[in-house]
């Protein structure tokens, strides 16, 4: 029984060639354009780490009452606290989902992809009088070109009743839908 390999126009390194890294880099654009790739991109901030810290001090805290038994959060609870995660992905339409615990010290988080705000223009208010660990925020219909993108989470304002500008998250999920 024979199997067929799709022609991806990749340049296969010659026999004995050790420059696999160069070969891969040379074909990176082709890999980006592989439109059938639908594996979600997932940042687990309990074991992973953000690419850049914009402001504030962040750390992970184990807590059995949380969705993933822990969360990534900012004890500085200041306006402007934020971080950036980066990824490479094929061109397509994407849905972004992430958990953000609501609490009495939750701020308003705004989301930017490549410095362009996405989702609610007013951000997402994470204040609640009682803790809500099951709060999942979803942003659909994100059109991304092939290549590298930065995903920015930043605290920008707060509810008048909130005592701080806190963001608590553990998982960020980006899924190509079309």
């Amino acid at each position, binding site marked *: 029984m024979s199997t067929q390999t799709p022609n991806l126009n990749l340049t296969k390194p010659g026999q004995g060639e050790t420059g696999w890294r160069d070969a891969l880099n040379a074909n990176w654009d082709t890999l980006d354009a592989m439109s059938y790739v639908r594996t979600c991109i997932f940042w687990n901030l309990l074991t992973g*780490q953000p690419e850049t*810290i*914009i402001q504030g001090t962040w750390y992970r*805290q184990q807590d059995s009452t949380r969705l993933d038994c822990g969360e990534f959060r900012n*004890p500085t609870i200041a306006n402007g606290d934020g971080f950036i995660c980066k990824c490479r992905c094929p061109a397509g339409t994407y849905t972004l989902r992430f958990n953000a615990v609501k*609490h009495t*010290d939750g701020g308003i988080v705004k989301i930017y992809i490549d410095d362009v705000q996405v989702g609610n223009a007013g951000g997402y208010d994470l204040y609640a009088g009682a803790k809500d660990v099951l709060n999942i925020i979803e942003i659909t219909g994100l059109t991304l070109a092939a290549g590298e993108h930065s995903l920015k989470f930043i605290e920008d304002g707060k509810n008048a009743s909130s005592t701080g500008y806190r963001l608590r998250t553990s998982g960020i999920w980006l899924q190509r839908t079309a």
Partner: protein
Amino acid sequence: MKVEVFSDKFVTKSNPNGRAVVDTDDPKARKLLGEKVIAELVGGGDGVADTGAAPAAASSAAKKRKTR
């Protein structure tokens, strides 16, 4: 107590996410990060208490340090 943090206090060109492992008993780290942050790193929990008063565990640790 050693804790991994990601902080703008440690961001450099070669360390853009400000990753550092800090010792919460280290006076330099305490000064750099601030007592409010240190109290939460030590006390943990929900963190909410830190917006008002420090958690009991952190307050107790701070008192011990003062008496040294």
